[in-house]
């Protein structure tokens, strides 16, 4: 019956089916109307929520597994290696095999661990990821919830993942985990400031916190070009502090392999470890997706002033692919950080934040406000 509704919705579309990729809103409206006509409002909403939940679950798994293999391949090419190349063509199914292995592995109970919190921690991290993923605009009309304070919601919710990390560290009754979690907490709390201020810079320029409006405001040019120097500085600061927020790259003292074995998830095994591992990569995806939405125009194609034919060609690429292209560009940047720079010490990390990023950021916000006030942006 559900399939019938969807196919009905597809057939009632006036345009050919591939037009869906350019604008998803007619498809979603069609499904909505079909469901509402065949059942009561309560069940229609429930079924819609179920569909969205399943779609996000699949999306989560696919993106997570893809990013793990992508990371391993990027690192391999940087180091003149081939990377995983045994399972499937070019080793593309390596992470699927890893996931199957982790699913079958034993979940080792830890002696004297707080088992409730121990089991709760991975779910908090995962739930936070889902809550953020729901608020991102993936394409035209492909947007689960469009809050009017979208970007504020994203930073508010994403900073909750530190609770999961701290719980994991505290409850596993291990000094490695505890030290890793504390470091992670210190890091996230201090870099949250930079991320917030970098986002405020964009919010000033866009004049709105609603993600769909921020994307819409970039129709005439991406913010990184529109806001020129301050927007570019904000972008650099956002990417640096986003890398720190996800406990990755040169800022991965929370799980410094050489000193803390694996940090806060030392004691986790099997699928619970896989949850943390996937959540780390999805966090990276979220940081990159927010960066591409705020600075690189989200799903907006690349447009140049009044080059009509050029703009038409750019419009031909579906917005969906624009979004993922930009996101993977930022992800590549973040991966490049990890495989280029040596790990920072905790004092160097805090020096970078409090002595450099924060003051520059504060001045940057002021400059951006001045530019917007004078109308000096494009």
């Amino acid at each position, binding site marked *: 019956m559900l399939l019938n509704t969807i196919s009905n919705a597809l057939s009632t579309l006036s345009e050919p089916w591939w037009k869906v990729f350019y604008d998803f809103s007619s498809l979603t409206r069609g499904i909505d109307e079909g469901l509402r006509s065949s059942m009561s409002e309560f069940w229609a909403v429930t079924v819609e929520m179920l569909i969205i939940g399943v779609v996000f679950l699949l999306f989560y798994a696919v993106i997570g597994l893809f990013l793990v293999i992508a990371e391993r391949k990027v690192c391999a*090419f940087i180091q003149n290696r081939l*990377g995983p*190349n045994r399972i499937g063509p070019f080793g593309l199914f390596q992470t699927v095999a890893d996931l199957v292995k982790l699913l079958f592995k034993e979940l080792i109970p830890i002696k004297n661990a707080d088992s409730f919190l121990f089991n709760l921690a991975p779910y908090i991290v995962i739930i936070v990821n889902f809550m953020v993923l729901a608020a991102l605009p993936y394409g035209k009309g492909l947007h689960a919830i469009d809050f009017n304070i979208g970007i504020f919601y994203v930073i508010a919710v994403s900073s909750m993942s530190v609770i999961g990390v701290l719980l994991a560290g505290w409850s596993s009754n291990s000094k490695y985990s505890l030290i890793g979690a504390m470091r992670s907490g210190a890091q996230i709390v201090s870099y949250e400031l930079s991320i917030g201020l970098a986002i405020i810079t964009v919010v000033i320029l866009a004049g709105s916190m609603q993600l769909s409006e921020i994307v819409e405001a970039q129709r005439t040019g991406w913010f990184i070009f529109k806001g020129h120097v301050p927007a570019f500085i904000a972008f650099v600061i956002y990417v640096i502090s986003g890398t720190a927020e996800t406990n990755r790259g040169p800022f991965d003292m929370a799980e410094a392999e050489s000193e803390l074995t694996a940090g806060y998830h030392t004691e986790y095994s099997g699928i619970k470890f896989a949850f943390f591992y996937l959540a780390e990569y999805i966090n990276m995806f979220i940081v990159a997706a927010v960066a591409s939405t705020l600075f690189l125009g989200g799903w907006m194609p690349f447009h140049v002033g009044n080059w009509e034919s050029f703009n038409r060609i750019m419009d031909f690429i579906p917005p969906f692919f624009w979004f993922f292209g930009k996101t993977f560009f930022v992800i590549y940047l973040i991966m*490049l950080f990890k495989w280029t720079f040596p790990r920072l010490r905790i004092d160097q990390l805090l020096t970078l934040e409090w002595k450099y990023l924060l003051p520059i950021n504060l001045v940057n916000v002021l400059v951006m406000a001045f530019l917007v006030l004078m109308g000096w942006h494009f």
Partner: protein
Amino acid sequence: MNSIIQYFKEIIQGVGSLLKGMQVTNRYFFSPGKIVTQKYPENRKDLKMFERFKGEVVMPHNEKNEHKCTGCGICEINCPNGTIEVISKSIVTEDGKKKRVIDKHIYRLGMCTFCALCVKTCPSNALAFSQEFEHAVFNRALLIKTLNKPGSQLMKGVE
């Protein structure tokens, strides 16, 4: 004032050096050049190991089935874990002198740590490392090897 200039100078220098590092890794990502990974089972036909690779200890023989081992036993003395055992015999040469020559040079591959002390200390350079590395066998006894080939003799001019 000086410290302010210093502050911005540090930032610019730091960003510059970070960008330089990223340039290098970025270049390697897009043009890795020579890939060092060997796809082993597929390329075992044309896999060439390196000169310095220590596969196993061998005793090179020339085309007349002659080796350079005099049977002095220095390799046996130097071996830290008793991998090598030199069994010698004495023969009578044409001019009526008694001479000690090697009977069997036994090498236990299963015990070898590849420390290369035997190869380094051999006074007549009779031992060497081969690049062979596929040592897996089903019977442990097959790992005990006799390095001198049957019927081989000491090379002329080596004492």
